[in-house]
């Protein structure tokens, strides 16, 4: 059962994370949902996922900090996709500078997200 690929999803909108979890589980992934950045970091350290999906604007620890923590503190090269609201180009640039692999602007299509996930981790 544990041969499923693990994904950590950090998102504070419960309905959206429920939807994405549902969708990704159906695609055969094991999804851990964190409602804030702090939880996300805990999950990442605990489960060592193959992919991280994170919102930029989150309570307490922002998505940027999650990326920075993964790349600089944990020294992991796990692919990271960030979500951002419209008009946050600057944030997205920062996310890329910190080592994010891909980004999706909200509102985004969940189907498109799945395609991008598959492209990154198969």
């Amino acid at each position: 059962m544990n041969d499923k690929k693990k994904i950590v999803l950090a998102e504070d909108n419960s309905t959206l994370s429920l939807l994405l979890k549902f969708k990704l589980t159906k695609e055969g992934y094991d999804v851990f949902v964190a409602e804030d950045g702090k939880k996300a970091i805990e999950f990442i350290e605990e489960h060592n996922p193959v992919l991280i999906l994170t919102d930029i604007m989150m309570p307490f620890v922002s998505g940027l900090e999650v990326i920075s923590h993964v790349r600089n503190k944990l020294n992991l090269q796990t692919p990271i996709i960030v979500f951002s609201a419209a008009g946050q180009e600057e944030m997205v640039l920062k996310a890329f500078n910190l080592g994010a692999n891909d980004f999706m602007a909200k509102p985004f299509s969940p189907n498109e997200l799945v395609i991008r996930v598959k492209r990154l981790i198969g």
Partner: protein
Amino acid sequence: MDTSTVNTILLIFHYFFFAYAFAAISSYIILAIISIVETIEYKKKNKFVNYKEILSSDIAPSISIIAPAYNESLNIIENVRSLLSNHYANYDVIIVNDGSKDNSLELLIEAYDLVKVDYLINQQILTQPVREGVFKSKNPAFEKLIVVDKENGGKADALNMGLNISTSKYVACIDVDCLLLEDALQKMIKPFLELTEVKVIATGGVIRIANACIIKSGKLLDVNMPKSMLERAQILEYIRSFLLGRMAWSRLNGLLVISGAFGMFDKKIVIEVGGYDTNTVGEDMEIIVRMRVHMEEQKKKYKVAYIPDPLCWTEAPDNYKTFISQRNRWTRGTIEVLKKHRRIGLNPKYRSLGLVSFPFWFIFERMAPIIEVVGIVYFCILMALRELRWDYAFVFFISAYLFTVLFSIVAILSEENTYHQYKKKGTGYKLIRTILLEPFLFHPFVLYAAIKGNFDYYFNKKIKWGVMTRKGMTKAAESN
């Protein structure tokens, strides 16, 4: 003195107290009604506002959060983290280390990868010089953070340094130990951007008491009612003053004070008036009065706005010693500010500021404790002279008490109908009990502190700042 003179004096006293009480009670009733109207309107108007998406926009104007810190090593790391996670795109956080003697600076350098940077400071306001320098983070995730280390000069001086450092259009001045909710900046900036007919010069926020609340990693997780009478009574007092008092004054555009713990300002105007006054302990009230005077003199339409949402949570004193020294300082601050600006009192040139706000503040805030003490003395004299009419005294006392209780209940009802922060079962009972007992168990300390403040102001010139020993928010939360 013959009996008729004594009688005349007594009669004058009678009428004076009666008139004062009558005026106080009527003004409180009026304020309560205005504030309820204003609160309903505020809630209605802001229900449709979409804050989160809109002001994550980078077209929004820049804001600097300025937080002076003096020996705050206990919590500074957590607190800065909470300041950095506000939901607003275009802001920075300026921590002014005001000559701390502890290792605050080292902790900050360590936690946020700070390095000293070359920073050209525009000395628009004269302050104590920089000590170690200006620091910024190497880590882009903390790009918003600026730490400046300066020689000690007090809170006002530290805020002035922050004003010199800031390059933003607006500044939010806060106490570093405050917990800001993440939508605080969006909500506070709104009046500046929204009003077109008048110039908004400052916005005041509500301060809520964080004692016994559970705060983890800079986030408010659970709101609780503390156990001690002192803390509970302060909660009640804050709700009364912020939800009933200030809300009404904001409607009347007569706010004279924005809490030093959280307020936002148009930086240009703050600089124009010369920044914070370093010679008073009431610098938060003083700057608002001075900015108002400035706008009145320029004959410009302006407003000091007010946001009633619970955005800023702070720890209140949990022991009588700290409490009394805090209130002592507040009293001295009020006296200093009113004295410094006494020329505007009853001066028609300053319109409602001079004719309404200022006199009200003088009569019902500044003079209230003194009049109360005179009343008590008078009461005792009458008793000693066996002149006291018990039937009068008793019924007046009862009605005054009932009025106080009712006023508190209205404040609580207003809170429940709007923000309903104390959700837990049984809190309602605790609040009612606090309301009933507070006039006997809490009010005497408030009165004592105010009188002591008056005494210290006039007879004890060398008094230093009351040092507020803070337990530290996370620690307080853990021990709960």
